């Protein structure tokens, strides 16, 4: 499937006038609608939505584009039509009264008619012409014209008359839709309408693996480029919506705003700021590793910031998730009550992959969230092949990024080999990838988490132990020991051991300190006694010295006395 062709069709040829259908998505594929003033054939099998398609074309024309329309039904009576579309909120009776549309039921019963020779369909022309003129119609639907073939026998006349009818409609300058049942090997039973129509749209209702998908394809469109893919479409309460394979232009704006994951320790691993707004985040891991808890935490945090969030649950019911998350301290109910959080739970097998994509699109368009969670994408694989799932996710991511919506996927990996691709191969598409895995040792299982990649930011390369507590989610540093990474009770044991070791070490240090103190004291006292000893020796020495000095003085004095005495005697 080419992903780029639809992009081309978004640029219509300026000269080619088109009539908008007002059907979501179709106008994008056709580059502005159906060929104006020309006939378009919508064909398909029973129950593929032909009548609804054409009714929408008429009603939208009347209500949105100011183009009144005639709906000529060969199958359903006007009253039946009114009832059938009332559920879509269209009041055909009112529109009829306002002269915006005209319903005309053409009853044709073969058993009542006898063909008695040459005839023409002038009656139909007059009737249609009158209807068109009475309300100034710009749009006409003939549903289903081939009922004429079953009502009238002469096919030759019919074919010629239908050709004339188409020409006449063109001349009347009305945009026409003709519906036709799909025939064997041809687009219509009588192989006529597709050749005389300027545009042919084929509707299909395909069932694969018991899952039905409605598909639309533009088979031909004279004078205009158009998307050639099969586009899935959805019929729901609001009518038809076609999902164009959105262009993979990769031109969306980016922001460097960061948003918290709701797990502070995880934010810390991402530069302390969390993820980029508008990025896509994949959380993968084996069963029971807490992927949903991470997703719920992210959603909880977003709602706490007063942002809107849609949670697409493919496995659990909303109530189940709310109950389970309450046990780890996330009250999601309050956000639902506040209108911030919306759960959308559906089994993947409810409808085809493309249908899921269409409904996700629709919900997002309606709710305009800032965060989308898909939990888990792996379950989608039950309704499609890997490549289909991948292509769907590419388109989804593309769509979300163009809207600056942050998206978190969870994915269940079936094996624990880390280096392997994620199951849907989306790992290359996402901006950030968290891996949660089991770490099994010492007879217990613990959760380890690390950031596989996170574009545009520094992120921790550490394995963290991921702990789920009553108060939420935490990441704990794991312990590295000679035996390897320690988690869980082994980590706790190791932590205890370390505490003990520290106490012992502290004690040892204290004892040594005290011994040193004591030694110091001993030495100090020794020094003091030696000092005393030295002083007494010094005193001893000083004593002799003083005595000697005194003796010398006394001797000196005695001699002087003697001299004096001698002199006196003479």
């Amino acid at each position: 499937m080419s992903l780029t062709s639809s992009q081309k069709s978004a640029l219509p040829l300026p000269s080619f006038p088109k009539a908008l259908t007002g059907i979501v998505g179709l106008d994008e594929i056709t580059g502005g609608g159906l060929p104006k003033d020309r006939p378009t054939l919508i064909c398909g099998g029973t129950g593929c939505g032909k009548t609804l398609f054409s009714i929408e074309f008429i009603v939208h024309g009347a209500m949105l584009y100011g183009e009144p329309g005639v709906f000529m039904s060969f199958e359903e009576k006007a009253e039946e039509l009114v009832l059938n579309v009332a559920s879509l909120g269209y009041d055909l009776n009112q529109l009829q009264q306002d002269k915006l549309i005209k319903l005309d039921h053409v009853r044709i019963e073969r058993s009542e008619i006898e063909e008695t020779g040459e005839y023409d369909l002038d009656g139909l022309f007059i009737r249609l012409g009158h209807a068109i003129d009475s309300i100034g119609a710009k749009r006409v639907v003939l549903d289903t014209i081939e009922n004429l073939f079953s009502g009238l026998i002469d096919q030759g006349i019919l074919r010629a008359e239908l050709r004339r009818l188409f020409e006449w409609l063109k001349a009347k300058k009305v945009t026409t839709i003709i519906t036709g049942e799909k025939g064997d090997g041809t687009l219509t039973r009588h192989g006529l309408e597709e050749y005389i129509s300027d545009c042919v749209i084929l509707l299909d209702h395909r069932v694969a693996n018991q899952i039905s998908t409605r598909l639309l394809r533009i088979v031909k469109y004279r004078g205009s480029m158009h998307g050639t893919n099969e586009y899935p479409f959805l019929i729901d309460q609001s009518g038809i919506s076609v999902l164009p394979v959105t262009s993979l232009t990769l031109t969306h704006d980016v922001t460097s705003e960061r948003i918290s994951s709701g797990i502070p320790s995880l934010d810390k691993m991402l530069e302390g700021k969390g993820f980029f707004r508008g990025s896509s985040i994949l959380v993968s891991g084996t069963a029971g590793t807490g992927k949903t808890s991470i997703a719920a935490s992210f959603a909880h945090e977003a709602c706490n910031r007063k942002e809107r969030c849609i949670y697409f649950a493919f496995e659990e019911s909303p109530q189940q998730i709310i109950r389970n998350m309450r046990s780890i301290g996330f009250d999601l109910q309050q956000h639902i009550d506040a209108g911030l959080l919306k759960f959308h739970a559906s089994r993947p097998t409810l409808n085809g992959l493309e249908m899921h994509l269409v409904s996700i699109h629709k919900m997002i368009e309606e709710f305009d969230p800032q965060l989308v969670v898909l939990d888990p994408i792996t379950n989608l694989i039950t309704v499609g092949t890997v490549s289909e799932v991948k292509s769907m996710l590419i388109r989804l991511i593309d769509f979300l990024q163009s809207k600056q919506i942050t998206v978190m996927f969870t994915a269940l990996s079936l094996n624990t080999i880390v280096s392997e691709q994620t199951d849907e191969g989306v790992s290359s598409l996402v901006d950030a990838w968290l891996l949660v895995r089991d770490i099994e040792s010492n007879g217990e299982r613990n959760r380890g988490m690390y950031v596989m990649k996170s574009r545009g930011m520094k992120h921790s390369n550490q394995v963290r132990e991921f702990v789920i507590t009553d108060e939420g989610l935490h990441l704990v540093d794991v312990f590295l020991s000679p035996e390897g990474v320690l988690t869980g009770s082994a980590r706790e044991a190791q932590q205890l051991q370390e505490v003990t070791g520290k106490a012992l070490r502290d004690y040892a240090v204290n004892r040594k300190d005290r011994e040193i103190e004591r030694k110091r004291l001993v030495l100090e006292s020794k020094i003091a006694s030696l000092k005393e000893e030295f002083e007494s020796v010094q005193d001893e020495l000083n004593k002799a010295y003083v005595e000697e000095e005194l003796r010398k003085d006394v001797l000196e004095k005695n001699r002087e006395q003697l001299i004096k005495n001698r002199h006196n005697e003479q």
Partner: protein
Amino acid sequence: MIEQVITPDIHSDGDGQKYELRLFVTGASINSIRAIANLKHICETYLAGNYTLEIIDVYQQRMLAESEQIIALPLLIKKMPLPQRRLIGDMSDTEKVLKGLGIAHTS
């Protein structure tokens, strides 16, 4: 253009009921002219004096196209006797016209 061809009813004998016929045509198209001629001939031959024929040009009364469920033209509606029958075409196939009108004919 409404052309009424009324054959005066003398006495309704035999099957009693009078044939009430309406022929819808489109102006002066070939089929229309042929149909009128053929029908008149058949009526004169088989229903002489026991029918009313109303010829209506749908172009003149376009509203009728919807209310009378007209698609193919020329169209002959046998209003009476019941059941109603619709015959389309230029009435050139006399057998079929007679069958449609419910006239047992012996040739």
